[in-house]
């Protein structure tokens, strides 16, 4: 089976600081990968390099048998990579339905051609909101939402682009236990529909229950990659998290 995402030896530096140092990573179609690491270990930088928000200085990213290097973020979204942001970034001046309309108009249209009529668009926005349980708030503005609803909106908007790969960047930080369960159920349901998911998270119970495979970043290097239960027992990982 060929990998859906193929990250090959990528590096990124900010001035003298090496944020990513020769990272290799493969993600198979339909896989649930957990990506963990202490603060500042380069998780978000890696996501940004995969999504095109940042451009890596060396190495390359291949997705779905296409080379992504040099492509802008919106072009990668068109090809099927979607992401949610660590801190939710909704479009503040638009209501929830319109927030979801953007990826439909700009990504799904760009991929399939303008097939959808305004009615279809409304139905699709409704479906997406229903998926995350926000259908009653379609006409509300993002500022009226609670934290967990904001995270759900963020995921729904990423899903609106009909991606093959979803990268959820800390979509559970700061949530309560039951809210985390909510988001996890949602992510598993998406995965069952065939969407490959990379979950970046600090909350270990969530990562452990969700991931089929775990990769660990420390100071810009990947130090472990394998089955979750093996990885958390790895000596290097324990040292990175707890110290010697």
């Amino acid at each position, binding site marked *: 089976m060929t990998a859906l995402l193929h990250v090959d030896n990528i590096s990124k530096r900010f001035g003298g600081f090496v944020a990513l140092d020769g990272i290799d990573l493969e993600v198979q179609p339909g896989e649930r990968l957990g990506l963990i690491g202490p603060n500042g270990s380069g998780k978000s930088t890696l996501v940004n390099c995969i*999504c*095109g*928000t940042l451009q890596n200085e060396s190495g390359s990213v291949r997705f779905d048998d296409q080379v992504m290097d040099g492509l*802008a*973020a*919106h*072009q990668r*979204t*068109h090809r099927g990579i*979607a*992401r949610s*942001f660590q801190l939710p*970034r*909704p*479009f*503040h*001046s*638009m209501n929830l339905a*319109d927030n979801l*309309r*953007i*990826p439909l*108009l*700009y*990504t799904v*249209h*760009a991929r399939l051609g303008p097939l959808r009529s305004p009615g279809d668009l409304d139905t699709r926005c409704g479906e997406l909101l229903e998926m995350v349980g926000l259908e009653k708030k379609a006409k509300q503005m993002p500022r009226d939402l609670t934290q967990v609803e904001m995270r759900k909106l963020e995921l729904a*908007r*990423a899903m*609106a*682009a009909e991606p093959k790969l979803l990268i959820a960047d800390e979509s559970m930080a700061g949530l309560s236990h039951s809210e985390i369960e909510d988001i996890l159920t949602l992510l598993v349901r998406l995965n069952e529909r065939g969407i490959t998911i990379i979950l970046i998270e600090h909350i270990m119970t969530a990562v452990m229950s969700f991931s089929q495979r775990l990769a660990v970043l420390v100071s810009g290097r990947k130090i472990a990659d394998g089955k979750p239960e093996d990885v958390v027992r790895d000596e290097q990982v324990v040292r990175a998290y707890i110290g010697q």
Partner: protein
Amino acid sequence: MNALKFSLISIGIGLLVLAFAHWLGLDYFYFAGYTILQFIVLATAWNILGGYCGYVNFGTAAFFALGAYSSVFMYKFYPLPIPVLILISAVVSGIVGFGMGYLTLRLRGSFFAIATLAMAVVLQTLVINWDYVGGSRGAYILRPEKMEIAGLTINYIEYLFVLMLILAVVALATARTIERSQLGFGFATIRDDEMAAEACGVPTLRLKLIATTLSGAFMGMAGAPFPYYIGYIQPQSAFGLEYAVNSIAMPMIGGTTSWIGPLVGSILLGSAQQYATVTISSAVNLLIVGLMLVAFVIIAPNGLIGLVQKRLRRGPP
């Protein structure tokens, strides 16, 4: 209401204004009205970039002057009818708008504003040193007293007024169409959050270039008939600060998120300025703008339109 219906209604209102002006038969009305209409075009053009995309452009005067000086150049080189000059100015200012957008891609917020202001200074220096279009001496444009259209002889100022009226209708219809289209949604995402917009698949760079080009083109069109209106043009008047300040203040006062905002703002502020020019002094103009801007920032940060929308949302007491 679809675009066609809206255009028909705007044309209808335009004709009513024209009929009223004709019935009044006052040259002064045309003079004052021309200025207000010109500000409607400028404010609407500014709002396409500043209001919809959130990029504050301080260089309105540069685009306006480019339009005006394109006309002066053609007047010396090969005189053409004004509607053709308007098109030429649109192309020239549109190209410069595109260039400005391309060069300032990485700049946001106040840095973008400073860059546009700098561009205005550079262009003014160029024009001051360009002898062919008059340099710092300025240039005279001799315009005919009367104009004959379709067998009808009208005063030249009325002709200019009609042209500007048409431009205003076109600008407003364009802005309104953009607002309700996919393009308008894309512009709004740029204003709200560019990074999230890219993640949703919005080609932000291309949209920004469309906005700077369109905005520049309309500003240039507003400037094209200006030399014929004023008769004598010099860099200081064409690159005047008042164009930059007014075209920012008018949408701000009216409300920047809708095409109605710049229209309402231009009519209010434009009329107040005309009134002050006649009754008090023309120097009071900028004072009025300043005071109104301060007042609106405090009382209604989202402009008059924002104030009305807020009331409507709250419902009757």
